[in-house]
Structure formats: C-alpha cells, structure tokens
C-alpha cells in the first residue's frame, strides 16, 4: 500500500504543484491520477520514488517512509514507466529490459534470458530483443518501457502516461493487454494520465486532480460517473456520463430466439427465414454470428456469402456490461442486438426498449457518501 499524507511540493520558483495531498493506493489495484495538464500529476507520482522530494508531508510504501531510504535503492525496487519512454538508445532492447536486474547484480546471461521472457509477456517477439530502440515503432517502444519496469518483478509500479505517445488504435490495444497483464500479475500501480476515458477504463480507483495539486474527487470509476463531486469533476468527465456509467453495470436482459441462416445458404432460403423487416442473421457452422443480410436486396439466384453481409452491429456478451448490450441493439441494422455466450456462439438477440427497462429497474449506483475506504476489488 502506498500512502501519501499531507504532501506538498513547492518548486524553487514558488509554483505550488501539489498542495496538501493525501491519497492511498491499495495493494494489487490500479490507482489512476487524472487531471488537466499542469495539475501536478507527474509531480505527485515522482514524489513516490523520490525523483522529486516533497516540501512537506510523508510518503510511505507498506508503512516504510520513503524519505528514510536510499533513493537509488528505493527506485530499484519500484517499476517506473516514464512519460516519453526513455529507452537507452545505445543499448539493445533486451539490454534495456535487463537494466534493473543488471543493476541489482543479476548475472548477465540470466538477466537477458529473463528480458526475452518479459518481451514475450508484453506481447513482443523476443527476436526484437536484438534490435535497438530506434528500430522499433512507438507502440513497441512503449511495450519495452513496460517490460523494463517489470523486469525485477517489483511489487509497486509507477506509470506516467504510459500509453500517450501512440495512436488511438494502438493505445486501445496496449490498454487491453495491460489490463490482462495486471490480471495475471496483480501489481500495486499508480498511473498518471490526462485522458479521462483511459482513467475510467484502467482505474480501480480514480483520483481527479485539479490545478494546484488538489484532489477534487477520489472514487471508483462507476461512482465518479454517477456522482461527480462538483462541477469541475462533472465538466472533466465530459459528455455521455450516464451512458458511460452503464459500462460498469452488468445485468441479464431478455433474449429472443433469432432465426438464422448459415453462410453459403441460398438467397431464397434466407428470404424464407428473414423477419418482417427483411433482415436475417447469418452464422457460421459453429453458430458464431457473421453479420446481417437482407435477401430482398440480393440477386435471387445467388447464395449468402461474405460480400452479402451488412457491416456494423457490435456484439455483446450475455453477462456483459449494459453499455455494450444497449450498443449492440442500437448499432444493429435490424435493431435487434446480437448477444453471444462465452464461447462466441449466438445466445439470442435483445431489444433496446427491453434493455432500457432493465436499466430503469436497476439500483442507482452507490451513494456518493460512501467514499472508497474499502479495499480494492
């Protein structure tokens, strides 16, 4: 557990970057610091590994005062992913990843072997280990940065905008992999981002900071969306709060049997099975949904092949978040949302009105008067 207690940082030029901030980051959970640029996120993060010394207040990790420890020693025990990657350009990728174990005295051969395993763990081909950082794409470099931070298997990780330097598609991918990895490793993580969507997606707890280094609200993502503490937080969260909050609420919705045809069936077969609106769901031989087709629009003699499928229409899982279930209905060309089971096979379809009925009967998200003092999920 990382604990900041009444921490203040005033820079020599008088800027108060962090003002009397108290925060607890529970074990094995991701605590995200989010806020506009210049609000003191990086300063707060760097006071945990003493890259910046607080002006006053205390920082402890598992009850140990970090200010009482040797700074270099302390940092070797904390994984640190810095904002701009910060890979060593003169070292190969595997040597970069092995940097901390080598500092700690691990024999070189063993450190490099371990580095290759870590590359694999973060989704990189271990063969990339022989390259130099300049030979990697931005997304690959970010992965190497994460691998380096993990190399000595530290219980605590600090991450400063680890996914900011890549395009949105790669970022999504890195975030998903990061969550999978955290599911396996269960590190105690403090992460900084200016992207509220990233904070809500990744955080078990989210601390919204406002300029001047004060916490405007500390809450779980669902609570944040349901009960922003003040106008600043509400503005920062942005639009679609109610809809985004559904991303944290899962419930079963009524499912309807959906007539299907197999890929390769004739158009006349499909026409016979289509609903009154003319749409029919196409599945493969394992009953995995492939898309919707409207036989009336197709030449009568042909068969249903991939070109006949209408694009669009997201899939939702049976016990997935209501946001995805509702979206499946809204995005479907037939307005019937496709719901799949855990194996990806068709479970049935849902209707937007029925999903909304389920939402209306749901309990409101927990009361704002219940701050997060309870341990992480």
């Amino acid at each position, binding site marked *: 557990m990382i604990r900041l207690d009444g921490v203040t940082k005033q820079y020599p030029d008088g800027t108060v970057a962090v003002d009397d901030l108290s925060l607890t980051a529970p074990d094995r959970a991701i605590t995200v610091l989010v806020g506009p640029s210049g609000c003191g996120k990086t300063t707060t993060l760097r006071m945990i590994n003493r890259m910046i010394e607080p002006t006053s207040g205390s920082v402890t990790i598992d009850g140990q005062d970090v200010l009482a420890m040797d700074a270099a020693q302390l940092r070797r025990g904390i994984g*640190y992913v810095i904002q701009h990657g910060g890979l060593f350009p003169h070292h190969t990728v595997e040597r970069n990843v092995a940097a*901390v174990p080598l*500092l700690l005295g691990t024999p070189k051969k063993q450190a490099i072997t371990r580095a290759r395993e870590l590359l694999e763990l973060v989704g990189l081909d271990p063969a990339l280990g022989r*390259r130099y950082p300049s030979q990697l794409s931005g997304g690959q470099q970010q992965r190497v940065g994460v691998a380096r931070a993990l190399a000595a298997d530290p219980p605590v990780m600090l991450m400063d905008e680890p996914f900011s330097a890549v395009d949105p598609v790669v970022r999504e991918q890195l975030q998903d992999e990061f969550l999978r990895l955290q599911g396996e490793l269960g590190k105690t993580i403090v992460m900084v981002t200016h992207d509220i969507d990233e904070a809500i997606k990744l955080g078990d707890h989210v601390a919204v900071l406002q300029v001047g280094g004060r916490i405007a609200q500390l809450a779980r993502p669902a609570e944040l969306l349901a009960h922003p503490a003040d106008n600043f937080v509400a503005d920062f969260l942005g639009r679609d709060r109610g809809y985004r909050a559904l991303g944290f609420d899962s419930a079963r919705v009524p499912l309807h049997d959906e007539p299907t045809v197999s890929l390769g069936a004739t158009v006349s077969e499909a026409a016979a099975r289509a609903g009154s609106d003319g749409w029919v769901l196409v599945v493969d031989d394992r009953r995995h949904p492939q898309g919707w087709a409207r036989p009336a629009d197709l030449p009568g003699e042909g068969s249903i092949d991939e070109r006949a499928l209408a694009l669009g229409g997201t899939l939702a899982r049976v016990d997935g978040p209501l946001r995805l279930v509702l979206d499946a209905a809204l995005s479907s060309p037939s307005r019937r949302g496709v719901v799949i089971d855990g194996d990806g096979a068709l479970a049935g379809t849902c209707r937007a009105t029925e999903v909304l009925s389920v939402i209306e009967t749901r309990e409101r998200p927990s009361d704002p008067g219940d701050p997060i003092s309870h341990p992480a999920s």
Partner: protein
Amino acid sequence: MIGSIIDWLTSSASWSGADGILARLLEHIGYTLLVLVIAAVIAIPLGLWIGHTGRGRWLVTAANALRAVPTLGLLFALTLVLLPVLPGDTAFLVPSVIVLVLLAIPAILSGTYAGVEAVDPAARDAARGIGMTGVQVLVKVELPIALPLLISGLRAAVLQVVATATVAAYVGLGGLGRFLIDGLATQDYASTAGGALLVAVLALALDAPFALLERLVVSPGLTGRTRPLRPSEPNRTAPAGGST
C-alpha cells in the same frame, strides 16, 4: 620544383640522421600525443562534469574564446616568461606544450560537453528513475551516448595540434616544423614544401585510428549502423466476439 620535392622526400639522406625526416616525424608525433593526452585528461572529465551537472557552462564558452588568442604570440610570451625559471630544454618544451594544449582543449571540451548535453532528457531521467546513482548515470548512459561527439572533438583537436605543432620549431624545438622554418631560412624550398606535405599526410594518418576507434566504441544504436530491419507492429486483432 615538384621534382625537387620528390627528390627530397625520396632521398635516403634526408630521411636518416638526428635531423632527418624520420627523426622529425617521430618528434612531431611525440609532441602531438603528449599534448593530446594532457588536453584529454583535462577536457574530457571537465566536459563530462559540466554536462552531467549543468554547472560551469561558462567554462566551455571561456575555452572557446581561447581559440582567438594568436598561437605564436602566446608562445613567445610564455617562452620569455618561463625561460629564466625552467632548466635547459624544458624551457622551450613547456611553453610549446602549454600553447598546444590550450589549442586542443576547446575542441575536446566542447565535443564532450555537447555530447552529454545532447543525451535525451528522457533517457537520463529513466536512468535515475530505475535506480542508477549519479556516477552510474554518467558512466553507463551519458558517456556512451556522448561518445560520437566526444570523438569528433578529439579528431578536430588532432588535426589542429598536428598542424600547429610546427610552431615548436620557432623556439628551437624539433618536429616537422624544422623543415619549414629552416627551409625558409636557407631558401631550401624543396624541404619547406616537403615538410608541409608531411604535416598534411601525418594529420590524415593520425585521423585514421580515431575513425576506427569510433566504429569500435560507438553503439550501432546511436549511429544507425544497424542491420536494415523494418520495424513492424505484430499484427494483433481484437479477440473474436469483441465489441465496440
């Protein structure tokens, strides 16, 4: 004219003896190496320290200003001052060496400092952040990344010192400068031109080992001298059945 230079350069008489080409060449190389070692021992640690701490940048500016001091004038002034206090030949050697060291320092100091300065702040920050001590940051990160510019500085210094070491002859010392000065005095233009040619060839010859050094010690990650590999993001697609 050219014929007489070639005659001079190729006659065995001009190569042998205490004042022959071979002896002068070795003297010249000796001065150059002595000066370079002294200058490097002063300028490299100083440049590393200034780059690492960010303190004392004015020293780099000051050293560069030294380049404006006329070498010959300084040499004569120093010789006059030191002649009474130094014994024997050292009275001539020490001023020459000082002048040449002062000439070599700015290039090496600027190169070293600029090399450390050019280190990506993110890499330096990461080095501290993963738990390197100040010395480790300097030795394991800043110095290796500074090497290309540091070696450029050394090479510039070598060229300058080889060319300028000819002035030592003005105060009665040896080296290839003797052929230039004595040749002028005795109107033996073949030896003057031949001496100048030898200086130029020596400068090039002494540059070669540094070029080799650079290839050996500078990481391919810095020079781009890497095998031609095309970075490619492994293809990853969302898991089947994924949504939004």
